[in-house]
């Protein structure tokens, strides 16, 4: 078995709360990513997906504590915290933030802001950097003569493209995108998603798309993990998630998403709210809201179990499934 490009193993993140106590935001998240793969990290607000993603880059505040491993090409980059993760930032793993459109320095030209990481990480200098920045801009669909313009002269969609160019400045292997199209119109969203897919293909770039928008993941990703209350509820190919979900939350989340094609099918909401993460959770975190909860759910925490080829789920409904033989 070849080493995956990126592997998260049992990632846990705690935040110290100002009044004392801890918020356990990420509770044992594991998944793997291969080169060139498009992976979705899906969940609603507060499920820990953004925190998990920030952990991969080590971009956490001082009140955060991490446990578990994030292995890049087999090496645990979180082993000694900032010291081991910073050499990989931007060089190997880069990120496009939510609201990246507004993350530009208004008094610096867009071109120079794309060159900046090249200088910082000693990738290129001077004229070479300038040329590479212009090429990147062209690649993301911005004419290179716009490199000398300022961010306010760009529209929202163009700025998002520029943010993607900036993320690619040091030719990373992995691109993390946090809600990259959330604030964009549906047509611009389609353009940006198309861009991300083509970039992933051309540069053999692995893509982790973090979003709450299930249909976006359905259209763009090969595999996805659905997160709930800081844990992975289910992880599988996107086809399996929709057609053969093994966790009620996955099924209900899809059912709660209206779809153009669904005709008269009822859209359901999921009653209740996610559990608090500053207290210990007993049993399955989804149990209070689950429509299929039964005896063990309230008291026993379900383990993430293999329920098919590249398909894991943490639900007692799968308890009868014996571990299939590994391929």
């Amino acid at each position: 078995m070849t080493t995956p490009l990126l592997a998260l193993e049992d990632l846990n993140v705690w935040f110290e709360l100002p009044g004392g106590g801890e918020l356990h935001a990420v509770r044992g998240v594991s998944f793997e990513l291969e080169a060139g793969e498009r992976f979705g990290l899906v969940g609603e607000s507060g499920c820990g997906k953004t925190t998990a993603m920030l952990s991969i880059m080590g971009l956490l505040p001082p009140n955060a504590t991490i446990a578990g491993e994030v292995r890049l090409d087999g090496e645990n980059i979180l082993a000694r915290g900032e010291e081991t993760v910073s050499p990989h930032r931007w060089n190997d793993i880069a990120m496009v933030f939510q609201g990246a459109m507004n993350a530009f320095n208004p008094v610096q030209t867009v071109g120079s802001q794309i060159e900046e990481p090249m200088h910082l990480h000693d990738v290129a200098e001077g004229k070479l950097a300038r040329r590479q920045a212009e090429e990147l801009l062209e690649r993301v669909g911005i004419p290179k003569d716009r490199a000398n313009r300022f961010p306010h002269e760009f529209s929202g969609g163009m700025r998002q493209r520029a943010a993607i160019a900036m993320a690619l400045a040091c030719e990373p292997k992995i691109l993390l995108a946090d809600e990259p199209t959330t604030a964009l119109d549906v047509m611009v969203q389609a353009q940006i998603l198309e861009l991300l897919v083509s970039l992933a293909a051309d540069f053999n770039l692995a893509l982790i798309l973090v979003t709450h928008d299930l249909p976006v993941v359905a259209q763009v990703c090969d595999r996805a993990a659905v997160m709930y209350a800081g844990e992975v509820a289910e992880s599988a190919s996107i086809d399996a998630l929709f057609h053969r979900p093994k966790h009620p939350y996955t099924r209900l989340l899809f059912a709660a998403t209206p779809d153009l094609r669904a005709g008269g099918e009822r859209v359901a909401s999921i009653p209740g709210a996610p559990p608090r993460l500053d207290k210990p959770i007993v049993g399955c975190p989804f149990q209070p809201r689950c429509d299929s909860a039964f005896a063990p759910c309230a008291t026993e925490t379900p383990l993430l179990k293999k329920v098919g080829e590249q398909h894991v789920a943490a639900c007692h409904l799968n308890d009868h499934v014996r571990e299939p033989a590994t391929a």
Partner: protein
Amino acid sequence: MSASIQGGAAAATEGVDVAAARRPGSIRHVALREPTAIAGLAIITFFVLVAILSPILVTGDPKEKVGPIFGPPSASYPLGLDGGGANMVELLIAGTRVSLLVGFCAALVSAFIGGTVGVLAGFYGGKTDVVLMRTTDYFLVIPDIPLMIVAAALFGRSLTNIIIIIGVIYWTTTARLIRAQVLSVRERVYVKRARALGAGNGRLIFKHILPQVAPLLVANTVLLVAYAIFAETFISFLGLGDPSVISWGRLIENAFNDDAILNNAWWAIIPPGLCVTLVVLGATLFGQSLEDALNPRLRVGHLSVRRFKVRPLRGKLDSE
């Protein structure tokens, strides 16, 4: 257009949660937490207590001559005697009352004028705004000391006049601050909603805008107290103060007039100056921390590189 980034610590708390109910940005929240706020408040409280208790602490006439002119500090008179042979300690205590009284009242006058101008200009906009803001600008430009001298000369030297003069000079920054705040609150969705359902201007101002603006006004008023006390001090120092009352500024003026420096009588000059400094410091500390906490600038969460901690992994299914 979906839910914004939730800071790590704010994620996933259940809906109805009364325990976490303290509203960020309320005055109580700040006053009880920030060390600078506590320090400032302590200083002000101390002086306020002195002022309130001064009739008890000082029996008889503090100006009474009890010893030689500029008598040095001694056991019975810890801060010595002034140019008229009166006990400095008693004079200071008596002066606390006046200085603080003028300070607070003038600050209130300023706050009232500034607050009203700010709210009206910010809420109504248009011509009202232009007229009020131009007026504010004119007041800003007028040099305060010459104005005070002229006013004192014209209207006589009484406490009331001083309060009014100070009040009338210092309302301008308040007006600007409040106007800016009102402009932003006016655009908030809940104000628009109230307007959409037919609420009149009065209701919008008093029920929706003023409560949002009040904390900032309070914070600003505390700062105004600092300005006002200082203003009173130098008005009195210039000899324009009310001759019939004792204030710290008056004490300093007297000391200068009686040649305290020539007599090396530092105890006649420094203590009153120190009192003024301390009160102004206290009010500024308290006022600044309030303003910092209440200023509607959003706290920006920084994704800057920081030192997070790494914990060795414990057993996989520990219920944390």
